[in-house]
């Protein structure tokens, strides 16, 4: 095992991955990694617009893992829960890509799939209107935020967002989402 990690890192580098995380995510990780990511882009003189787009998708994606992941250790309020998931940020062909992954229940999968299918049919203007509409609606107890985070990601992404559900067992799926800037 010990002799395989260098290959592992080389593999990540070849794929353009500059950051990858699998494990328990809490707000400290959000703040810490978010700051490093922004500092790195600042050093590389990435424009403020691009770096804030990447940062914005990063925040929505990681806060979604915290809110939606079915693997979680509950705390006093749900946003302080320790949730398990995956987050990858990389750069390839002058584009940034962000990938998020976490386990969801079958029930969550149905709702999420319908919602993301709906987003996929919308252009930027329709996404803007839908964002405003959902912002006005009181969030329901399941979504914990009216899906605003996903709409925000779709608005910031320069290509339609990709998503996938892989069946784990009868009760759960592994949900993956990819956004590009």
């Amino acid at each position, binding site marked *: 095992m010990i002799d395989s990690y260098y290959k592992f890192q080389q593999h990540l580098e070849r794929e353009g991955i500059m950051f990858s995380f699998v494990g328990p995510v809490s*707000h400290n990780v959000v703040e810490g990694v978010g700051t490093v990511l922004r500092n790195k882009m600042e050093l590389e003189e990435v424009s403020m617009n691009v770096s804030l787009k990447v940062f*914005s998708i990063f925040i929505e994606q990681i806060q979604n893992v915290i809110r939606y992941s079915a693997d979680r250790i509950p705390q006093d309020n749900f946003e302080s829960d320790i949730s398990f998931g995956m987050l990858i940020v990389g750069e390839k062909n002058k584009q940034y890509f962000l990938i998020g992954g976490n386990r969801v229940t079958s029930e969550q999968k149905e709702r999420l799939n319908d919602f993301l299918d709906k987003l996929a049919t919308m252009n930027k203007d329709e996404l*803007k209107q839908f964002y405003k509409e959902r912002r006005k609606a009181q*969030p329901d107890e399941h979504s914990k*935020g009216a899906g605003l*985070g996903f709409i925000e990601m779709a608005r910031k992404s320069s290509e339609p967002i990709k998503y996938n559900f892989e069946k784990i067992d009868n009760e759960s799926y592994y949900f993956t989402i990819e956004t590009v800037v």
Partner: protein
Amino acid sequence: MTKLHIKATKSSPEILLDPTTHQHTLKGESYPENSLEFYREFFDWIDAYIDTLEDTQEVIFNIELIYFNSSSSKVLMDLFDIFDDACEEGKSIAVNWIYNEDNDAILEYGEEFAEDYENLKFNFVVI
């Protein structure tokens, strides 16, 4: 009423609410762990302030955010809803939406808010 001053953190803005100058400020970044909880004290203050506000008093609310997440966008909407209603009842409140010239997203989101309100005035200030 007394001033409310909350210092900025990495993920939450500086809040400065001043009932004597009637110039209020929200400045920095906003993606707190729990936005409802973080902004509770802020909204309690705003509600009490609006109740005691004279119609003739001019109020300026400076919003100088570099980044805010989707939950904070909901918080801003709730704030502007309160201001818009107060303006309709005769209060004089204006929002200064302060943005960096290289930050298109913030300008765009400010303009999107401005187009949704009839009574509340938005001034766009570039820095």
